[in-house]
């Protein structure tokens, strides 16, 4: 299967002099297109840093990163921005919707940046909001939505542009377990229907159980990497 993410010997150090934190230590990783993978591990093990390296939000201290065969580590600011706009969708733990835009406008925003025609935009966004269970709530502002509903809008925004890769940083951490399960169902459905690759960072056992691939992180290194069944067998 085609590789969507490739990391080669990626390291990231924070701080200077004697006080250096090694967030990532020589990570090598490949994620296949259409995968539904979870990064798990204790806090500070390097999960979020790894997502930031893939999306180009942060620069590695060493190593190279490719997304969809394009080398992220060799890109300038504008090229990275274009990559995120066209190839990567983001779901954040704290939803991070634009407070002055309605649910519809938040989901529509990326399509506007891409220059999608108004009619097509409207059709896409209405379908998406319906798919994420927010039909009838298009005109609500984020403050008028619950945490789970806001995360649904964030998911709709992340997949509106049909990205090759969706990066989700602990997407179920701020919602109750029922909402988390519903959000997970939604993401599994979107992964299957739209063939979008999902890569999560998570502490949630349910997310780990539903993932098709589990990458366990420890002290900035990949400790284990395989299907949940394989990892279970290795215990």
């Amino acid at each position, binding site marked *: 299967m085609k590789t969507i993410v490739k990391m080669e010997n990626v390291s990231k150090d924070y701080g200077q002099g004697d006080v250096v934190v090694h967030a990532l230590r020589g990570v090598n990783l490949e994620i296949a297109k259409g995968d539904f993978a979870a990064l798990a591990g204790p806090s500070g093990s390097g999960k979020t840093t790894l997502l*930031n390296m893939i999306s180009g939000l*942060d620069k590695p201290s060493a190593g190279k990163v490719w997304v969809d065969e394009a080398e992220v580590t060799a890109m300038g600011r504008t090229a990275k921005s274009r990559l*995120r706009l066209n190839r990567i969708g983001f779901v954040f733990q704290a939803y991070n919707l634009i*407070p002055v835009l309605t649910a519809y406008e938040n989901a529509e925003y990326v399509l506007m940046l891409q220059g999608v025609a108004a009619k097509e935009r409207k059709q896409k966004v209405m379908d998406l909001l319906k798919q994420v269970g927010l039909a009838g709530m298009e005109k609500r502002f984020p403050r008028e939505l619950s945490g789970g509903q806001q995360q649904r809008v964030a998911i709709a925004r992340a997949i509106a542009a049909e990205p090759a890769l969706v990066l989700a940083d602990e997407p179920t951490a701020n919602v109750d377990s029922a909402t988390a399960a519903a959000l997970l169902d939604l993401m599994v459905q979107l992964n299957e229907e739209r063939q979008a690759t999902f890569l999560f960072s998570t502490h949630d056992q349910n997310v780990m159980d539903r993932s098709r691939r589990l990458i366990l992180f420890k002290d900035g290194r990949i400790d284990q990497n395989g299907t949940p069944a394989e990892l279970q067998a290795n215990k």
Partner: protein
Amino acid sequence: MNHIFKLGWRSIWRNRRRTIITLSSMTLGLVLAVFFIAMAEGVYEKMTDDAVRMLGGHITLEHPEYRDAPAVDLTVPEVDRYRKDLEAIPAVESTKVLVLGQGVLKSGGGAVGITLIGVEPATEKLTSPMARKIVAGSYLKDDDTRKVLIGSQLARQLKLGKERDIKRIVSFWQSLFSVFDLPMDDSIAELARLHLAIGKKVVITSTNVDGDLVEELVRVRGIFKMGAPEMDGYLIQVPIDLARKVYGLGKNDVTQLGVVLKSADDQEVVLAAARRLTQGQPVTVLPWEDVLPDLAAYIRIDGGSNIIFQGIILFLIMFTIFNSILMSVLERTREFAVLLAIGTPPKVLRLQVMVETALIGLLGCVLGLGLGSLLAYFFQVNGMDLRGMMPEGSTVSGFAFDLIIYPKLSFEMLAWVGGLVFGAIMILGLYPMRKATRMPLADLLR
């Protein structure tokens, strides 16, 4: 582009209180700037207009040597031809001729050194503010031969009214006021003195072009009060033929040919035309600024200090606006980081900050210029009476400062002030704009 405007417009109203405070301070600053600049323009225009209409016009034609050594024998040749040609220019309201000279005015009560202005009464009555400032008697007439118009202060100095007659009139009015129990001030005595001076004989003494001493007996036709001691105390007007007679000049001799314009804005055009007309002739054509250099210098200096003062106010207001825009960016760093993370190109984000800055700037300019214009226009129509705040008789370079002020609004002034403020705001917005896209994204999203 539409979504950037929508996002910008909603963003500036997310902190309603801050935006209102920012707009209020900007509006207040612009209202003050527009009003005070319009007021100064109005004052300058009124002072200039009065001065040029009373003396040599917006443009003056005179002998090339007259400015260096004013003498009555330095006259303007071919006056009638120049007048005819100049009056044919559409921007010219009228032309006027003057004979300017020095002398002494004597009465039984004293003698005072004077500046004599020989005028054409009919022309002067239409153009000169002096004709509208008569407090006793009447203005000169074309058929007057031995009549003089003098200032109120000069009338007092020459003691033209007999003290006995003045006392009799004052005592009559005192008794009348006491019947109705009304208070009486010194103005009755002053009025009585001025009215008693009408028709009194005075003698103009001077030397003519041949150096001979000449004396002319004239009667007081009227008394003016311009409010400036420099004018009320030493200026006199006589019919131009009498002035020619006093100084021994010819029938058409004049020391100045003045051109009064319909609008001062046309000065440069008419000045050039007048210079073309007189090319090669022993005539110099001067703008009023060269004829009245003290007044022109005052307007330049006062205008400059006014601009500096308004500039300081606007400069301080700029900091409020800068602070407001910068705060608006700094408190939304996480939001900007999210926008960049989901793929917003940095230039689009910068554009959004610029749109927010421009919207605040435009709103402030529209409100400030609009309200400032309304305020200035109200006083432009009704006048602003400063007589209760400033002493009467305030003068600038010998010209009375009119205490009822009419501000002058102009599109050019509004465009300048608005353009300058908006431009400065956009420049100030560059730093927050740059700041919005130079962020440690990973740290902010953590």
